[in-house]
């Protein structure tokens, strides 16, 4: 069996980045995201 890694998983990094971006939107640092 592989030794469990203590590093954050890819999922967790994705959640952290998303929450950070959402927070930046909430506090107004990111105002408009064009598409």
């Amino acid at each position, binding site marked *: *069996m*592989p030794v*469990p*890694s203590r*590093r954050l*998983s*890819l*999922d*967790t*990094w*994705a*959640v952290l*980045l*998303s*929450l950070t*971006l*959402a927070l930046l*939107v*909430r506090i107004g640092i*990111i*105002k*408009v*995201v*064009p*598409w």
Partner: protein
Amino acid sequence: MSDAIANSPPTTAPQPATQTAPQPSAASFLGLLPGILLLAIVGYAGKFIEQFITRYGKAHHLVLPNIEYVLWAILIGLVIANTIGVPQIFRLGVATYEFWLKTGIVLLGGRFILSDIAKLGGISLALVFIEIALGLVFMTYLGKAFNLKLKLVSLLAVGSSICGVSAIIAAQGAIEADEEDSSFAIAAILALGAISLFVFPLVGHLLHLSDRAYGVWTGLAVDNTAETAAAGALYSDAAGKVAVLVKTCRNAMIGFVVLGYAVYWASKGQAAGIQNKAAFLWTKFPKFVLGFLLISLLASVGFFSKPGLLAIGNLSRWAFLLTFAGVGLRTSFRDLSKQGLRPFLVGAIGEIVIAIVTLGLVFAADRLFHL
């Protein structure tokens, strides 16, 4: 999805999860940048072509087919990967497409209010249970009929009933299957995912499925999450949104099914027993599902303004754009052709049956619950 995939070269048969991923450092982060830039260029090129065709049609009063940027991004990626190939310098960064997929899904939570998730998610969960049970039983029967090794059958069953590559990798470690078996199963699932990108939208249009019905069908029947998101978005933005929600319900089941298989193989003395089942379930549970629900909860309670929600929705679209570019760039037809024929046949027959049965389920659910 494991880090091992994100850090392995883009191939249709990723290295198994037991591979040790390099420790993060400034150098390894810089090593990702060329590939991420390539994802952005390919994805944006797809968007540019879509907009160019629309503008050209309007300017010249022509009725041109509206082909979503998703298809262009995938096609450009496929052409690069299968002609000149993806140079080594880009490979680490291209493999981050899974990370952008998860980020896109979490941010997509801002485009759903919880009551939507409760309604559509409730119906989806019921359908997901039926689909998983059907997929597991049918694939197991089919694999045995084709005389495949029993652990390869387990991997194919998990991959086709739940969530493709990540489920296979999770199951491979838990049931101690051969790395070769997991490579076969992953290659079969990815090859079928690539085919479904082109088949599902065609069938959806032929049957005049609504966005929601098509999204539910795609979420139930297409295996790998990146391909599900792409196959949904190829139909329409709304269909892509629903497809990802339904697929997320499927992904949430991964721990339970893998635990079931782990306990089964341990009872046969061919895998280590699971001491702490709750810890096992938590380890295997895809954490991005929680992030998706959290963002949706915040959106539902008015934490974000309307322009804020629009910005979050667009951030999600950009993350998916990188993902779709990665789907094309990592698909190598040469690698796909190297896989065993029998695992592919079992996977293909299974997928066709699952696609037909789930289509029937979606029609029934549409009549009963008006999806």
